[in-house]
């Protein structure tokens, strides 16, 4: 069974969702929690069975799908994807467990379970087309969640979300077809296997074009400045559960895809585009932080801060060395935990007051002490306080990029610190001072359902902030092999110099040797 654990992880929620049509409406929540819990337990088992010392792919599965065109059902995990898969199952569980939505709950839970299938599928796929299938398919449940349960502008927001991402992905698809065609030219065989593509060494000008094609798909998903305009709408209109999943998992698909596709496939192009992308990332950090400061809606603050932190992830990824990339992968997890938790917290107050305007609140700390405490911890984690989960990722990402450029890193570092202002300001507006609005005087503190969702997130945020090794080590091992692969494949002198050579270190095997 452990040999097929990835297939099981992908299709178990889908199967459960189908059976869910039969379950009665009032029992649906319990059913959803049960399924999500089993799925989460399965993903923990995957972690348990995973060998952290091996840097290559594990639990690989392969079956021909469209052999005539080189498309295979190819799955596998390494340290990079393992934890994002666990994050997906974890957040689906937490999301369903703390669900306060009551309208058409059956449809919602079935949709969430389908969404879980697509999320796990994206991170486990090693065939570009299988990856693309899950990547695109994930849009459909999210479209429905935003469009059916969202706010007043939900239809505009959901359609914008869908079309924006869909367009980017189609350009990426053309890029994938080109990769497959180059592979065909080189070997006489069609193949969409990412691992096979890793072996191709492309001329630099092809790399630049293909990098650009993939970049459209990924950058819109992340979303990188200037393609970020769909995200505030999507977050603003989405129900709490939609924002949580969107921020915690769906955005990570883009950054994950950079590490999985862009870096190892196009090392020269990655070096070529390193500084332009770093500048975009810094613009993202500063600009969205400023926009966040100007928001009056707490959910928009969280949404923009989430974009801002995605900038740090991009910066770390394009440091192109082990520290930066490992840091950015770790920060993906951290960002998922923290921004997911913040959206849950916003949902808590929204359920009570049906408003998200910060001017409506004030002095909540005295009315809702437990809520204020949890919000405070998560807010501190978000601004990157040492000993919280974000700090580890941000520090490593910046450290990585420091090796490439001191000036840019300094700018980014200052921006992050300054960026803390808007979070602190928002916190002050909502929680400190005296209660001015009478509607807030008798608000109930967080209840048990909500605590079930929030407490584990607080624990993770602090635990991984204090002791990140169990997660960081497997990530590090896999990232080392990616970097080594990049170094080996790089052709231009600049790329050779920028991407460190790790072959001197013990125990490093390249991706190809691992198979």
């Amino acid at each position, binding site marked *: 069974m452990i040999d097929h654990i990835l297939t099981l992880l992908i299709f178990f929620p889908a199967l459960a969702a189908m059976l869910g049509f039969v379950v009665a409406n009032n029992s649906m929540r319990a059913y959803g929690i049960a399924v999500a819990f089993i799925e989460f337990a399965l993903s923990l088992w995957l972690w348990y069975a995973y060998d952290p010392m091996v840097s290559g792919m594990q639990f690989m599965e392969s079956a021909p799908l*469209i052999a005539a065109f080189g498309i295979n059902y190819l799955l596998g995990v390494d340290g990079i994807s393992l934890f994002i898969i666990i994050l997906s199952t974890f957040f689906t569980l937490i999301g369903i467990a703390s669900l306060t939505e009551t309208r058409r709950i059956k449809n919602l839970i079935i949709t969430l379970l389908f969404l879980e299938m697509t999320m796990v599928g994206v991170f486990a796929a090693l065939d570009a087309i299988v990856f693309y299938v899950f990547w695109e398919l994930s849009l459909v449940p999210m479209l429905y969640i935003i469009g059916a349960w969202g706010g007043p502008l939900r239809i505009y927001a959901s*359609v914008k979300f869908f*079309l924006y991402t869909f367009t980017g992905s189609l350009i990426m698809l053309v890029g994938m077809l080109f990769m497959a065609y180059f592979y065909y030219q080189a070997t006489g065989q069609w193949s969409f296997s990412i691992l096979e593509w890793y072996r191709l060494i492309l001329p630099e000008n092809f790399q630049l074009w293909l990098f650009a094609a993939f970049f459209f798909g990924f950058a819109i998903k992340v979303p990188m400045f200037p393609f970020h305009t769909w995200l505030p709408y999507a977050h603003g209109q989405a129900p709490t559960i939609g924002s949580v999943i969107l921020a915690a998992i769906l955005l990570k698909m883009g950054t994950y895809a950079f590490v999985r596709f862009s870096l190892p496939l196009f090392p020269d192009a990655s070096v070529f585009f390193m500084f332009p992308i770093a500048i975009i990332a810094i613009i993202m950090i500063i600009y969205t932080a400023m926009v966040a400061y100007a928001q009056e809606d707490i959910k928009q603050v969280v949404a923009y801060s989430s974009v801002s932190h995605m900038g740090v992830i991009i910066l770390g990824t394009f440091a192109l060395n082990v520290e930066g990339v490992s840091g950015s992968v770790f920060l993906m997890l951290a960002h998922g935990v923290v921004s997911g938790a913040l959206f849950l917290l916003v949902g808590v107050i929204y359920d009570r007051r049906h408003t998200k305007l910060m001017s409506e609140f004030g002095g909540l700390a005295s009315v809702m002490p437990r809520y204020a405490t949890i919000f405070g911890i998560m807010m501190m984690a978000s601004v990157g306080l040492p000993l919280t989960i974000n700090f580890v990722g941000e520090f490593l990402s910046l450290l990585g990029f420091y090796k490439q450029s001191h000036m840019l890193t300094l700018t980014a570092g200052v921006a992050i610190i300054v960026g803390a202002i808007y979070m602190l300001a928002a916190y002050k507006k909502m929680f400190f001072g005296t209660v001015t609005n009478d509607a807030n005087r008798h608000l109930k503190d967080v209840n048990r359902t909500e605590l079930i969702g929030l407490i584990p997130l607080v624990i993770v945020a602090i635990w991984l902030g204090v002791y990140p090794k169990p997660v960081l080590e497997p990530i590090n091992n896999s990232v080392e092999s990616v970097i080594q692969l990049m170094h080996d494949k790089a052709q231009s002198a600049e790329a050779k110099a920028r991407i460190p050579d790790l072959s001197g270190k013990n125990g490093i095997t390249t991706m190809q040797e691992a198979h």
Partner: protein
Amino acid sequence: MLEPIHVSLASLNIATLAPMLIAIVGALTMLVIDMAKGGLHKSLYVMISLLFLLLDLGALVDFGGVFLKNGTVLGFFDVMLMDGIAILSQIIIVAGSMLFIPLALTSKRFHEYDYPEYFALFLFMIAGFQFMVATDNLILIFVGLETASLALYTLIALHNRSKSFEAAVKYFTMGALAAGFYAFGSMILYAISGSVEINQIATILAEDHYSNIGYVLLSMAFMIAAFGFKLSMVPFHTWTPDVYEGSSAALAGYMSIVPKIAGFVVAMRLFEFLVHSGIVWLQVILYIGVVVTMTASNIWALVQTDVKRMLAYSSISHAGFVMAAILIGTTQANTGLFLYWALFSFTNLGAFTMLWVNRQKNLLPEQSSDHPYEKFSGMIKTMPMGAVMMGLFMLSLAGVPPFGLFWGKLYMIGSAVSAGYTVLALIMALNSAIAGYYYLKLIVFMFMKEPMVGYEKFYFMNASLSLKTIIGIAAVGTIFAVFAVNPLLKVITLFVYNSGY
């Protein structure tokens, strides 16, 4: 005195006519039955049509086996040409027809199905299309085209609504114009080559090193106009939405699939040798035609308020997308054409059938057309299964994986990429994104809006078991297409490659 020519019966290879003859015999049988005893129920005629189509399909599969063993079969003074693409396209034609004809078994009574002639004409039409694809003789193509078209005009008019008459007359007029263009085009080709067979024309022109290039181009101008009408390429598309709107949804779905594949095959035979011999003018015209057809019809589809008209424009766009295969002209592209069309048949027929099941007899006071978007709003609440099905077909048409059409699009764009048409590949991809909007619009209405009062009793009002079965088959074909693509690709590649395309 002329010597009598002795033709042995064996050399005629009458068997090549078998598939068409089966359809014709079926049509005659129905007329005879009607003569013997009138007033029989439509279910009888539907089942007889199905039986004959099944025989037809059997004969074609048999030919497929012969083709793989012995190669192309010629017959009837070498007029009949049973090569791979002829067999493939006939299989698509007959299978598409088999999915269509059970749609006559609605639970409500419709005028046209009371006439047995409807079913007889239907089989004659199929025979016409089969003749059209199974030959490279320009005259026989013309005969097949006209047989099929005349039967089709009548089928549309039989729907017995003023819009249907308008549609039929419009289609007839445009069709006559196209036939005229076709006749002129073939006339010029005959004048410069002395032959009416496409492969001989190709040989003669090549030996001649295209010294008559001016005349060739003139004839191609006529031919492009003729096929532009038949395949509804922009700017010859203006009849399409009106005709689709006027005919019953079922027939509109049929028209978006079967006549077009016949047109594609003839266009493939006629244009590809010219494209391959490097006639730049034709390449440029085709390139522009393909891009404009895809893009313009997509943009028109965005502003439609009626779902049927939207689907009409969308099928123009799909036809333009597939036309790219004829421009690209590689074996991979031609394979892609057939793969795309086989997958498209299922999805599009499913979508039109979903419209057919809620066809109303009378419009509501505020209703402007048969299938406005509002009719479907909030369908997820009143008719969840129907909404999911319709949503599925829309997603497939938009090219969302893993549903049917995605694989067709993937392969078509892939073939553009490997033939070096990078810009075309990007345009094809971006057009899928534009198209996403209007398919999504229907999904938005169905899943995210509140139901409108007054429409709910129409959903599935026409549905009978056989209609639901067809929807089910279309849905299964759409969802599980991924498992069918590999065998389909292998067979199609084999057939297309061995026919020299």
